[in-house]
């Protein structure tokens, strides 16, 4: 279960950003791609453990899941995929390795105390 080590990094990076801005965190907004290889429930659990004893203890982790999106050269369009087992365009059936979204593992915002 690597979610715990990823959670540890989330806590560290969020705290670093908060310290740099001189704010206190209430919630961390995370963008998580379908291909990031991270399981949401495990990550939430990991975050609770990793934040214990840190300034982030008791804060919330809010996860926005980003579906896998490819660029299909045949349709000349970005296409969202339902799963990650096939990078085939659901419209025309063409395979495309051009991934546009779905690998995200990033903190996008911090909710802070006034």
């Amino acid at each position: 279960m690597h979610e715990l080590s990823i959670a540890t990094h989330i806590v560290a990076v969020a705290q670093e950003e908060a310290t740099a801005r001189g704010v206190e965190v209430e919630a961390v907004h995370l963008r998580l791609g379908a291909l990031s290889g991270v399981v949401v429930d495990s990550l939430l659990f990991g975050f609770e453990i990793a934040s214990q004893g840190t300034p982030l203890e008791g804060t919330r982790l809010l996860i926005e899941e980003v579906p896998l999106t490819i660029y299909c050269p045949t349709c000349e369009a970005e296409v969202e995929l339902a799963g990650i087992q096939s990078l085939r365009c659901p419209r025309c059936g063409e395979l495309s390795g051009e991934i546009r979204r779905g690998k995200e593992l990033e903190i996008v915002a911090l909710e802070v105390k006034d």
Partner: protein
Amino acid sequence: MTKTPRILEVRANVLKDNDLLARSLRERFAQSRTLVLNLVSSPGSGKTTLLRQTLLELSPRYRVAALVGDLATDNDARRLAESGAPVRQIETKTLCHLEARMIEEHLEGWDLRQIDLLFIENVGNLVCPSSWDLGEDLRVALFSTTEGEDKPLKYPTLINTADIALITKIDLAEAVEFDHEAMYRNLREIRPGIEILEVSGKRGTGMAAWLERLEGALKAKRSQH
């Protein structure tokens, strides 16, 4: 009325520390012109057997070395050291993958200019290693014929980060009624165009093509730097 929370926009990659370190490792490997491979697979796929054979066959012509990740024991490192190549064990204790900082720590004291090819055998795991860049040139995902053809579908994340898929224990293909076509199809659904090689570390089948691929990659790297 509840107060709307104050939201600060931040854009921070969660694994930025690892990525930065991986980048600096990649620069070091470029300077020393060392070709670095990250081998990833589930436990029991034949990584160590293949690596041992690879080290043995390359060592008369190239300077090779290996870092071997495992949760515990140095059994694999000892097996690999029989090839005569310098080998170091990375015991991760509870961690299910290798991180760039462990690579940096375990390179301590090695003169990279004296190493042509460095193999990193990741912890046997098809999930966790995929997020961690180790500064490698090529990520090789190993699947043995005995694991079945649908393995790639179960672990798409890893395949999506791999450069080469290596099908191991190919000598057992017939015995386990391995379906080549299904395997190739499954791999390429997830990673269109991925390079696929078939090998048997034990019998030597396909080893020539694998070694040739490595030598080609080394040559290409040397001509770049």
